[in-house]
């Protein structure tokens, strides 16, 4: 049950300017935007950004395809600057420093900061689909934006984030700024330099674990009874285990309102899946929000296509490697520079885990590949 009282509108409800160019209806008409309107704005925005392609290619790893959606939120803060920022963005990436994001609640600023590395081109398409799905969620969120600040019924972590967010927002204006150049560089995700100079192998992501805070107490029993594909066995584990088919994922939903989403194959899918779960919870009557979506772990795997002498690796890299055939057939290599753990097997298969961003996985593989090449079995 939605235990928190329905929050009333705070006075400082931000203007709902969804895009920068066509002025939207007045701030008070906060309703669901129709699908066509959303898509129109999205298209316009995409066209706009495509023109800016190549503005700051090196920044590409930071951007996420989701950002255009979040751009709506950013712009929502200040309609004037939203309009002005358009030409600004064209010239300088730092154009958004003028936008005062300090009062925006966590969910937006946090989302921007924690944007995972960009997915692939087809994820862009996915994204545009997901935009339409996401658009249904944002409207209640928009309500909550201003409310988040004032509503006392929010969970503590949420309120505690405010000071840290404002600090971090002001401290790192670049992050949202760089996010302002998003779609321009959604194209190839790997950073320019290291597109496997030594090998054409790129690790494939196999699993992404992410967490999100729905910011309301949940009645797990109600969720388990009314939701499809939900299992809840309080004696065994204190969370509802829900599964959806579309990005094939599993979520653990706890009564505190926090949720863990596992099983997605890309950052975008993880976010989309998490939003879907949040929508399910919302449809059951809880005032669910979507705060602090963060990717906690990414697992990737690849094949170097030659057998490896693990004994050689454990001799040369003793302080990083742990190879105990009695315990596990693979060598466990704990890399320091990107803090990644690699499981290296005799067959040449390598599993990389512990990453928070895609670039870490790629970097770790780039680091280990020359070492493995030197340890090829004759």
């Amino acid at each position: 049950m939605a235990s928190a009282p329905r929050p009333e509108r705070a006075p400082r409800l931000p203007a709902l300017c969804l895009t920068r160019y066509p002025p939207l209806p007045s701030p008070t008409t906060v309703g669901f935007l129709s699908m066509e309107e959303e898509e129109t704005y999205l298209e316009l925005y995409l066209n706009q950004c495509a023109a800016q392609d190549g503005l700051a290619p090196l920044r590409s790893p930071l951007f996420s395809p989701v950002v255009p959606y979040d751009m709506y939120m950013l712009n929502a803060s200040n309609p004037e600057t939203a309009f002005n920022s358009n030409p600004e963005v064209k010239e300088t990436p730092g154009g958004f420093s003028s936008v005062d994001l300090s009062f925006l609640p966590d969910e937006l600023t946090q989302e921007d900061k924690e944007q995972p590395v960009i997915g692939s081109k087809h994820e862009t398409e996915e994204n545009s689909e997901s935009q339409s799905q996401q658009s249904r969620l944002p409207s209640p969120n928009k309500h909550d934006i201003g409310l988040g600040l004032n509503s006392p019924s929010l969970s503590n972590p949420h309120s505690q984030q405010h000071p840290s967010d404002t600090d971090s927002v002001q401290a790192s204006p670049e992050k949202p700024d760089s996010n302002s150049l998003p779609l321009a560089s959604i194209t190839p995700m790997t950073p320019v330099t290291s597109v496997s100079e030594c090998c054409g192998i790129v690790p494939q992501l196999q699993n992404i674990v992410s967490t999100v805070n729905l910011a309301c107490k949940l009645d797990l029993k109600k969720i388990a009874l009314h939701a499809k594909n939900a299992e809840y066995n309080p004696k065994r584990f204190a969370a509802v285990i829900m599964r959806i088919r579309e990005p094939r994922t599993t979520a653990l939903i706890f009564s505190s309102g926090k949720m863990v989403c596992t099983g997605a194959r890309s950052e975008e899918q993880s976010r989309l899946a998490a939003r879907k779960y949040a929508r399910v919870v919302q449809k059951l009557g809880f005032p669910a929000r979507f705060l602090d979506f963060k990717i906690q772990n990414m697992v990737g795997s690849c094949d170097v296509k030659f057998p490896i002498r693990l004994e050689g690796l454990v001799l040369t890299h003793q302080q990083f490697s742990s190879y105990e055939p009695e315990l596990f057939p693979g060598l466990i290599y704990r890399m320091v520079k990107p803090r990644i753990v690699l499981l290296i097997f005799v067959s040449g298969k390598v599993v990389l885990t512990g990453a928070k961003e895609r670039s870490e996985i790629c970097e770790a593989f780039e680091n280990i590949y020359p070492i493995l090449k030197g340890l090829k079995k004759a």
Partner: protein
Amino acid sequence: MCIQILDALPRVTCPNHPDAILVEDYRAGDMICPECGLVVGDRVIDVGSEWRTFSNDKATKDPSRVGDSQNPLLSDGDLSTMIGKGTGAASFDEFGNSKYQNRRTMSSSDRAMMNAFKEITTMADRINLPRNIVDRTNNLFKQVYEQKSLKGRANDAIASACLYIACRQEGVPRTFKEICAVSRISKKEIGRCFKLILKALETSVDLITTGDFMSRFCSNLCLPKQVQMAATHIARKAVELDLVPGRSPISVAAAAIYMASQASAEKRTQKEIGDIAGVADVTIRQSYRLIYPRAPDLFPTDFKFDTPVDKLPQL
């Protein structure tokens, strides 16, 4: 009057060899020059135990007047106070209970450590490990205990892992399953503690090889020396020729023993070998299938076949 503890400088030196450090023979109470054998000092106080105490000795009176032998390396500050049972009327209070009951705890700060040492000795005793391994284990445990980085883990788990590491470091590794057999801790937990201890002490151990286990497994199976040597040769060759990539050395050793025993007069079944080695018989079968095709190359040249190579069982 303070008694000076002479750790650093010998109070006396050998007249012929003033630089030589005197060796203490505490049993006889002498200090002997190692160069010429001259007995320089005598009547040195014996710090060994006064009476030998046996664990099964139920004697109520302990004749020892000075307590157990000192173990300064391990428990710090072995000095403790014990209160004996009182005699005479004054030692009993109103109700007839003795005042100053029971001997108070000795070195309470190291109670857990002493307990662990006892456990280590018990475990080592079960598999007949020599004293040097037990001492090394005790030292490792003391280091880990003082570091406190693994404080939350069960002491028995840490003790078992230390025992495993000590065996590895002494060059006579025991398999995890063998340590499991004498400990109440699961293999998983011992494995976890093992990795944690290596990280905490910043040491590493050598990789296990098939030859480390041959003598033990073969003796337990009562196989003659020829078969043991053949099995060692087979396993080494198999690893060199990379016939068994990714297989645990224990499984390869077990398969080699099976092949060698089947070629000799002393045949052993896979189940028997599996029981001794702690390997499942399907695992032996898998590894055996990998080495079987190259069997003629793996045997040593001087091996006397009871069953010729082509008649070896094919599984």
